[in-house]
């Protein structure tokens, strides 16, 4: 891990952190992963003004479903070796409550990417339609800048839909085809790692009109209660995330970025700027921070600062210069920079 320590040779000049997710310009590549950073709650609990001083370059709220969902029975989370497992079950107050909360986000300077979930195609369609209608009719400044949607077809913790869609290329394509005509905004599809070949599903999504892919969602997993020897989580199984899964997530991002021409949002176990850089080297345009937000409320800005330092230490002038260095076609190496 030792880089040449010659501070005189680098450290000079600006490092360009801005990236483009299709038409969407982000001031840096680090966004939050859905379900792991609730802006309203962070504002309510912490002294810091997270709206005025938002650490991420885009805000992805918790997945919204048409109806309110109470979620799965507890326990819902547990720690594992270098990871954590959750079975929240898409607990959320539902579409109407989300629409009501939009004005509270109006002051946010960063774009919002709305994560949408559901048990069936029609649910996703209903949520996107309702949002489009609300946004179109809203007076300027009364709602945040909603830049796009992330279709969550990969939550392993709900019994119907979601993962059943995301593991099936045809279902995924049908969903994207249904949503695509409803909006001109950025359409992201969030992929599951629980498949034999992620590229098949990714390609189906892109062919059906997705602008961007995000991955990975969590890995279906199980924790045994050490006292009773029964499944520990109320939902029996849950989804594994955190540093434990990073090597698998990197491989999946690498495979998708190598195969498809759309921008990729990479995630899975990122806790440092170097982790973020690794995803970028594997072809990610942006990266998302999930479980690391639980370990530290300032994870976002720390990772951005570290990423900048890592680029600087390698004499890489921009995030783009690092992008894809680990992909099959790339002859370049960070050593040449």
């Amino acid at each position, binding site marked *: 891990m030792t880089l040449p320590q010659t501070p005189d040779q680098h450290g000079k000049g600006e490092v360009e952190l801005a990236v483009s997710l299709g038409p969407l310009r982000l001031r840096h590549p680090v966004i939050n992963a859905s379900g*792991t950073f609730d802006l309203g*709650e*962070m504002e*309510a*609990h912490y002294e810091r003004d997270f709206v005025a001083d938002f650490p991420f370059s885009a805000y992805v709220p918790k997945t919204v479903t048409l109806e309110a969902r109470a979620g799965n029975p*507890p326990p819902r*989370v547990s720690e594992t070796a270098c990871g954590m497992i959750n079975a929240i079950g898409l607990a959320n107050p539902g579409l109407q409550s989300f629409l009501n909360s939009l004005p509270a986000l109006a002051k946010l300077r960063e774009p919002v990417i709305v994560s949408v979930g559901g048990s069936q195609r029609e649910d996703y369609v209903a949520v996107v339609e309702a949002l489009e209608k609300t946004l179109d009719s809203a007076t300027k400044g009364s709602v945040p800048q909603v830049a796009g949607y992330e279709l969550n077809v990969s939550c392993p913790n709900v019994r119907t839909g979601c993962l059943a869609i995301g593991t099936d290329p045809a279902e995924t394509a049908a969903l994207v085809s249904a949503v695509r005509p409803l909006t001109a905004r950025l359409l992201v599809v969030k992929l599951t790692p629980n498949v034999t070949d992620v590229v098949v599903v990714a390609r189906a999504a892109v062919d059906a009109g997705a602008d961007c892919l995000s991955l990975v969602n969590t890995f279906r997993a199980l924790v045994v209660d050490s006292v009773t020897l029964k499944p520990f989580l109320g939902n029996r199984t849950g989804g594994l995330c955190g540093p434990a899964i990073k090597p698998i997530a990197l491989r999946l991002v690498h495979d998708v970025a190598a195969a498809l021409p759309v921008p990729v949002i990479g995630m899975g176990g990122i806790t440092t700027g170097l982790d973020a850089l690794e995803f970028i080297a594997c072809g990610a345009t942006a990266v998302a921070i999930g479980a690391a*937000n639980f370990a530290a409320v300032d994870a976002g800005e720390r990772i951005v600062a570290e990423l900048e330092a890592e680029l600087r230490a390698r004499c890489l002038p921009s995030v783009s210069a690092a992008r894809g260095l680990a992909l099959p076609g790339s002859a370049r190496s960070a050593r040449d920079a």
Partner: protein
Amino acid sequence: MSAVPAGSSMVQKAVTVDCRVSDVRRHGTFAVVSLVAPHLARRAVAGQFVMVAVPRGGFVLRRPLSVHAVRGDSIALLIEARGHGSAALAAVDVGQTLSLAGPLGTGFVTEGVQSALLVGGGIGVAPFQMLAERLAAAGSYVTAAFGFRDHRQARVAGAFDIPQLWVATEDGSLGRRGTAVELAETLAVQPGTVVYACGPLPMIGAVQRWAQSHELTGQASLEAHMACGSGSCHGCVIETTAGYLRVCSEGPVFDLRMVIAP
């Protein structure tokens, strides 16, 4: 989700601070860890907790720990080594630094309480030192009934300084034989006494039934596995009469009647 804040509403917002361990006292498998944390010492309400980073590799989540006591600029945590994380936390030494986020959660309501009965089991007793002091300072008459498995676990009582503190053990190896609730039963309880309960869910259920039969109101502090500790993740819910509520933000202190216990 219709949030029904049952405990004292959050007065002060949380911060993340690195705190120096200034003192460690061990009582059997428990450790009282004192930390220099002026900010938290000023802000915390009894019953609130801090999210503490485990100072060892391989851990991704912080651990929620109640504020056990406030002493000037310092706060004390009372830690039982149960799993890997708490074992690492209970093993810290003076001079080390721990990262704390807090204060978080609802606290106990202590205003206007004439007489208070604190019923705790096992590590559940942790917040009761601070609670007893705050209640006493507000003019309440405080009695505490602590229940433990055996004399080994009961050693944690040594970490407390509460004038009217009674101890029972399930195996009778120290104090009265029986549970905390059976112990409470033996105490003369004035009408209007407010019951404060903290411990495993079955114990809370027993306290609930006992309080109801004596027509006493009460507050219960609950435990749950946490990820964020601040309302973001919905990981820490428990079942209540108002549906699933988050222990970290709608709790940990709930109205005793709301708790659904086995």
